[in-house]
């Protein structure tokens, strides 16, 4: 029982961060149809950069600076790499994101080395008791932050001009352009938002687990979450994030502790396999029906 409560809390905590990272991934996919295989490296970038900045700035400013730089990186990737590739086969563009990911990862390791780096203690550490289980306080704080940010993103898409324009373009690109939505602007902002969401994910996970190269692989878990939810569904991506977090901690955690160690990290990918066999378009994705 203790194990279940503890795993659920941990699952929701990690899941909320996955959800945030997956949101960025799904948003970019909706707006551009590009599977960004460098998303995990953007997470890594956020974590490393925030740690480096906390060395010279107070923590809140360091986080703010990280987000601004992440947004600039997003804009730059779109302007310098993606825009010239416009109109090229999608597969080529996706392979380019793979290369971009390796470059970012290589640079991060080159600059900051391979050891795990820690944030200075800014959030209250230690354990708190919850329903008979012991849960790290840090997890609760980062989960709250992630949930708050998810809500903020939700409001942004519902209430701001840019958010509405982005949704319009994500649904029907050409139609949106005939309504006066600038597609180049929307795509640029989609990259910036993807980079920001990833960087926040990197900071939150980094606060909790520390930052090393392995953090980049969380991008693949976000991919699992997004595929689970249905590639073109943003609520699906968020729910997918929570499900991956929960399954990983409940089932993966159990198998890890009792059967074979190291299973936890592959549960997300087993979920992808299972989902793709039963619902290839994901839980909430659009089912494509082609008439022949």
């Amino acid at each position, binding site marked *: 029982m203790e194990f279940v409560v503890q795993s659920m809390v941990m699952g929701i905590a990690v899941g909320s961060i996955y959800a945030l990272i997956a949101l960025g991934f799904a948003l970019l996919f909706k707006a551009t149809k590009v599977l960004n295989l460098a998303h995990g490296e953007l997470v890594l970038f956020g974590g490393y950069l925030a740690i480096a900045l906390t060395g010279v700035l107070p923590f809140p400013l360091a986080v703010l600076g990280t987000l601004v730089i992440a947004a600039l990186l997003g804009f730059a990737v779109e302007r310098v790499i993606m825009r010239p590739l416009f109109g090229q086969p999608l597969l080529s563009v996706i392979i380019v994101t793979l290369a971009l990911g390796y470059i970012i990862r290589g640079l991060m390791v080159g600059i900051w080395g391979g050891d795990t780096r820690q944030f200075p203690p800014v959030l209250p550490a230690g354990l708190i008791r919850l329903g008979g289980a012991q849960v790290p306080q840090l997890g609760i704080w980062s989960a709250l932050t992630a949930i708050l940010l998810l809500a903020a993103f939700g409001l942004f898409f*519902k*209430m*701001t*001009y*840019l958010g*509405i*324009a982005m949704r*319009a373009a994500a*649904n*029907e690109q*050409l*139609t*949106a*352009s*005939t*309504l*006066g*939505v*600038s*597609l*180049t602007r929307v795509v640029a902002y989609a990259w910036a938002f993807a980079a920001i969401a990833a960087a926040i994910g990197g900071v939150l996970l980094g606060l909790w687990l520390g930052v090393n190269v392995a953090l980049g692989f969380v991008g693949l878990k976000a991919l699992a979450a997004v595929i689970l939810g249905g590639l073109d569904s943003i609520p699906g991506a968020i729910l997918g994030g929570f499900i991956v977090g929960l399954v990983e901690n409940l089932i993966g955690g159990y198998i890890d502790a009792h059967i074979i160690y190291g299973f936890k990290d592959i549960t997300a990918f087993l979920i992808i396999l299972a989902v793709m066999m039963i619902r290839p378009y994901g839980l909430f994705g659009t089912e494509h029906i082609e008439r022949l």
Partner: protein
Amino acid sequence: MLQVEDLHVSFKGVQALRGVSFSVEPGEILGIIGPNGAGKTSVLNCINGFYRPQRGRIIFHGKEITHLPPDARAAMGIARTFQNIALYRGMSVLDNIMSGRIHHMRSNLLACGLWFGPAQREHTAHRRVVEEIIDFLEIEEYRYHPVADLPYGIQKKVELGRALAMEPRILLLDEPMAGMSVDEKMDMARYILELKEVRGLPILLIEHDMGVVMDISDRLIAMDYGVKIAEGPPSEIQNHPAVIQAYLGEEAG
């Protein structure tokens, strides 16, 4: 007000347009007819910016727009509908028409949905415009229905409504009556005429139903194989030998 000069468009060697020129005058309905593949939709795609012609110019209200992206042209007041309906299928009629207001929201970062202050007042103003359009098109009862569930004829009306919500200065309609029943076609023809007569809105119209297009157009252009083969009032086009030949084939000429 809209001049199209010598448009050339080709796709990998296939020439879709080979030197099309015409102009739309203020307050007129200009019909484009021609067999399938004549290049009618390509003309609209050039005007609204989906295609960049390899040669030729497009001038709207004295300004050359040939190289502007579609959104810039939309902001200048060029609105269009599509041959295959392109609505946001999961959204309601109201929200779809509201999406035509997007470029009028530009002034205000917090566009809609806030329930106080200037954003709320702006939202009310947009809603008023949308409600007038819903009244005009007589689709009040469908206001909150998702468009995907509605009959084809109603969806066509919603698409027209969304274009009107942009408060355009010219309307490009690509087969607004395709697939409609006779009653629905008569309704649509009535709306189009009313837009011209009451609002003085110039309309460029592609339509296959000869009866309707002859009835409502002030002037007609006939196209075949990417060129304009005739231009004039409907009565003249009806009996134009080149037009008859285009529709009936070589021997009939």
